[in-house]
């Protein structure tokens, strides 16, 4: 089964990629760390960000968290509210 997940982009990640969301192929047993590796290969400029976290379904996710096709995934560059 070929499926993809949509990754929401904000702030500098949106500027660097020129997109507000990118589609990533979802492979069997794919984890957050695999997603980051894929994105770094696809968009090398993302590697320059000081700290890039991933949120899954609105919660900060660890690198070993498994991903599913129904997850809402977002890249979280360093925050700077206030």
């Amino acid at each position: 089964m070929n499926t993809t997940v949509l990754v929401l982009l904000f702030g500098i990640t949106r500027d660097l990629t020129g997109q507000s969301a990118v589609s990533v192929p979802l492979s069997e047993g794919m984890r957050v760390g695999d997603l980051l590796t894929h994105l770094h290969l696809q968009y090398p400029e993302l590697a320059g960000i000081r700290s890039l976290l991933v949120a899954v379904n609105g919660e900060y996710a660890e690198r070993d968290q498994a991903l599913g096709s129904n997850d809402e995934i977002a890249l979280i560059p360093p925050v700077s509210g206030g």
Partner: protein
Amino acid sequence: MVAITTDPIDVTSALEHLHSGQAGAIDLFLGVVRDNTKDRPVDRLEYEAYDRMAISEMQKIADEANRRWPLLRHVIIHRKGTLQTGEMAVLIGVATAHRADAFEACRYIIDTIKETVPIWKKEVFTDGEVWVNAHP
């Protein structure tokens, strides 16, 4: 109360929400757009939020503040969109019986917002722009 808004933040409404007969202290922190960063003139700030997660992370901070201090009421409002210098970007308000708790809780809330809530600001200068904290 926790909220994200594109409208100007209404201090009077926030204060009304904080009023309580049991409160001996009400602390307000207002985060305002400054006209410079390290002596470089700032024209405006552009705030962006991952709304769904920003609300839930701010609610977590409010819950933790309520666990640590005896808060009677709290308000956290963050604005997003384009803000000119002098405009208010964030309002934190807490009401407590005694002032020490109010000061500490207010500081905890704003400091933690800057660490965990997915809201980003871009400083727009007259000669360029930069996402704060990103260091690409």
